[in-house]
């Protein structure tokens, strides 16, 4: 993918520096005033996204050696601290006994965390709104499963086997065309969207980047392995029913079987994954490493909080009759119209 447009002093500096030879340009620590909320700080979230993407597919213009440049890692650590402070502030979780982790996850995921985006898109969302929703989701879904895969080498025994079992299914069980990140392309194409990896980073606000960044934060740091497992469990446990609604919504708008495949697939797949994630992954991890119990629930709560924050942003923008994107967009014509 191409380097995105900067959104402030830090990302501007990064985009400039990353085009050069690695290590030849020191990156100063940031002296900027942090915005009140890191989750909504455009410059911070984009800068984090830039740093993280070097660990995934990288950028066309950037030398791969930048990935492990100490100056860059130092800058990233500063941004992560601000992000973490904000998350800790937004998400409060009560202490939980290791044995109670699956129940705590069940309680957490069965309470409402925000307005119902699935209901809106199922019943009355317009084609334009559905397209925006899919565009926001493409930031994560085009790399779906990848951030959680960082957890595999950090676990052992049953929790490890559970994570592998889930991830193998996310990756299509060895069939490339069945990988969830690939199936999502059909939905994008049906809506007239460009399915290129990272194509819409410039179009989405900080909160959308934050929903993806938080998994990279948990995934790239071993100390956050509990939160990573909890994050995955929360996603899986709040997936089947919303995806049933998204699928119904897209069918209402004229989407064919290929267009709704992604949503239909998740209704069935995540009814399996949620059981494995809550019990075999998080439950056994909490028992094997009791100190991680609180992190597991924290990670789950972060997933739900950011998901709700994004839903709030979308519905509020649509309510005002505005686009939820950073800039208006020209669409090619889609089939589902």
């Amino acid at each position, binding site marked *: 993918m191409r380097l995105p447009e900067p959104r402030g002093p830090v990302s501007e500096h990064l985009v400039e520096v990353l085009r050069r030879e690695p290590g030849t340009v020191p990156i100063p620590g940031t002296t900027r005033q942090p915005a009140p909320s890191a989750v909504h700080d455009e410059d911070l979230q984009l800068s984090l996204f830039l740093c993280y993407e070097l660990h995934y597919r990288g950028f066309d213009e950037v030398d791969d050696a930048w990935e492990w440049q100490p100056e860059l890692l130092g800058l990233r650590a500063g941004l992560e601290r601000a992000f973490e402070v904000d998350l800790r502030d937004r998400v409060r979780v009560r202490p939980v006994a290791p044995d109670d982790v699956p129940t705590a996850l069940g309680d957490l995921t069965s309470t409402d965390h925000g307005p119902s985006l699935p209901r809106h898109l*199922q019943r009355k969302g317009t084609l334009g709104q559905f397209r925006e929703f899919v565009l926001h989701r493409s930031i994560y879904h085009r790399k779906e499963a990848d951030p959680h895969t960082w957890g595999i080498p950090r676990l052992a025994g049953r929790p490890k086997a559970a994570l592998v079992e889930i991830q193998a*299914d996310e990756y299509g*069980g060895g069939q490339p065309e069945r990988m969830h990140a690939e199936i999502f392309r059909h939905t994008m194409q049906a809506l007239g969207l460009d399915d290129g990896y990272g194509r819409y980073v410039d179009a989405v606000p900080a909160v959308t980047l934050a929903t993806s960044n938080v998994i990279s934060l948990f995934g790239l740091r071993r100390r956050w392995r509990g939160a990573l497992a909890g994050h995955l469990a929360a996603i899986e446990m709040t997936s*089947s029913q919303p995806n049933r609604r998204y699928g*119904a919504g897209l069918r209402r708008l004229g989407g064919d079987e290929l267009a709704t495949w992604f949503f239909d697939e998740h209704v*069935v797949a995540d*009814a*399996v994954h*949620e*059981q494995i994630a809550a019990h075999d992954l998080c439950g056994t991890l909490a028992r094997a490493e009791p100190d991680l119990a609180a992190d597991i629930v924290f990670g789950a709560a972060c997933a739900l909080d950011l998901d709700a924050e994004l839903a709030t942003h979308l519905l509020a923008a649509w309510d005002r009759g505005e686009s939820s994107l950073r800039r208006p967009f020209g669409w090619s014509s889609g089939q589902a119209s």
Partner: protein
Amino acid sequence: MTARHRGRGGNPITVTLCENGPLLLRGDFVIQTQDGRQIAVRRRTVALCRCGHSTVGPFCDGTHKLVRRRDRPSTAAGSGTGTDPAGTSVDTEEER
């Protein structure tokens, strides 16, 4: 190597009873209708609905979480496959 009795392809079949939820099936199983028609299975592990409320039966779609708790299937041995779906209520709205 010890020879052990295994499923058709060498994988023993296990059935996991999920509390208030589906049955997880792993191994070399086949799912078929009463008249022997095979139901396509596209993943290694499947969740079979036992609350009777799934919209994508025989597979689970998570609807069991909306079924009132006291009507949910339990994991207790001998409790059969759950309660009579006709006698349970689901907290979903009309738009299902």
